[in-house]
């Protein structure tokens, strides 16, 4: 039992985590005919709170509250994992990345989020503003424009062999490759 607890507190390998994430697809279908996806929760928040006169937000969001429960669960799950299922080890990444990030003053690997970049005081810097605020805006705008995110397209859509989801997933990766390799280095220098 102790050994199991020790093991569970370590980072889980991909061949454990991946299939568990994949099983979310049949789980949601079987417990209530729900197609897996998370970015829609952002749309439901808009529909519930700031619909105004915008047709895109005028629909029966109450029928989709299950998605908000799911999102709330993800938040709680994050808390449970961080409080009870973690050892205090830093994130281990490729030494090449450590070398690169060192140049930008990123030394702290104790959290999943790099606390050197993502923290409240940084919000007042241009670098922090681009990373946290502009980045978040692109996540919200882009996922809705694409009609889904990593969960809705890359996992649910591909699981159902939908070729539009394959196109979307490829575009996620292309956008990410360009930004991480060409744009992010400029932003981190700010």
């Amino acid at each position, binding site marked *: 039992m102790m050994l199991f607890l020790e093991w569970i507190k370590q980072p889980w390998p991909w061949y454990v985590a991946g299939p568990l994430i994949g099983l979310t697809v049949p789980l949601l279908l079987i417990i209530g005919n729900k197609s897996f996806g998370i970015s829609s929760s952002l749309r439901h928040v808009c529909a519930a709170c700031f619909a105004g006169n915008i047709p895109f937000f005028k629909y029966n969001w109450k029928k989709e509250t299950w998605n908000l429960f799911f999102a709330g669960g993800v938040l709680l799950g994050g808390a449970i994992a961080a409080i009870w299922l973690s050892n205090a080890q830093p994130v281990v990444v490729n030494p090449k990345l450590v070398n690169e990030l060192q140049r930008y003053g990123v030394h702290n690997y104790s959290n999943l989020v790099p606390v050197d970049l993502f923290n409240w005081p940084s919000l007042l810097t241009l670098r922090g503003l681009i990373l946290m605020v502009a980045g978040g805006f692109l996540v919200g705008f882009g996922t809705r424009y694409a009609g889904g995110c990593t969960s809705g397209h890359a996992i649910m859509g591909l699981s159902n062999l939908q070729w539009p989801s394959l196109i979307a997933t490829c*575009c996620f990766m292309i956008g990410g490759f360009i930004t991480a390799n060409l744009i992010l280095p400029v932003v981190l220098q700010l």
Partner: protein
Amino acid sequence: METRDISTQPVILKETNTDFEVRSLDTICINESHIQHPWWYSLKYLVAGLLFGIVLVKSQVISWFRIQEMFRLQSFHMYGVIGSAVVTGIISIWLIKKFKVKTIYGEPIELHPKQFNKGQIYGGLLFGAGWALTGACPGPLYALIGTGATVIIVTLLSAIAGTWVYGRLREKLPH
């Protein structure tokens, strides 16, 4: 595109058509169930989300560092997670279709095809950029806030703002 048709139609159809649009352009994460349940039936989705959130944290796929590794081809981890998740999903849906599995309430499981529109390209590229900057997609944003990274609340609010602006500009954007 449906939005243009809407403007020429009477008010009642407007609402119906928008609901239709939730499905046609945005078939992601739609409630296919036709049964009405009291709110506390939704608590099971809270539990499902909770399990999903634990896996996101424990596999570190919500880590900005891991996302940077992925986009620099410096680690197999993210590809392994997403790849094996997709394979598991494909097998699951194949089994559901083959054995005509029903929901726990006895409803047949409904899956809708996704239609192609150019938004998947433009929006996909923009989201990819946001993913590389924040190191998070929408699910991880919630999970990260749960782990105590409180500043990510700002990123989540910004994502909600981005969604709203998309809804506002939608008819002017190419699809």
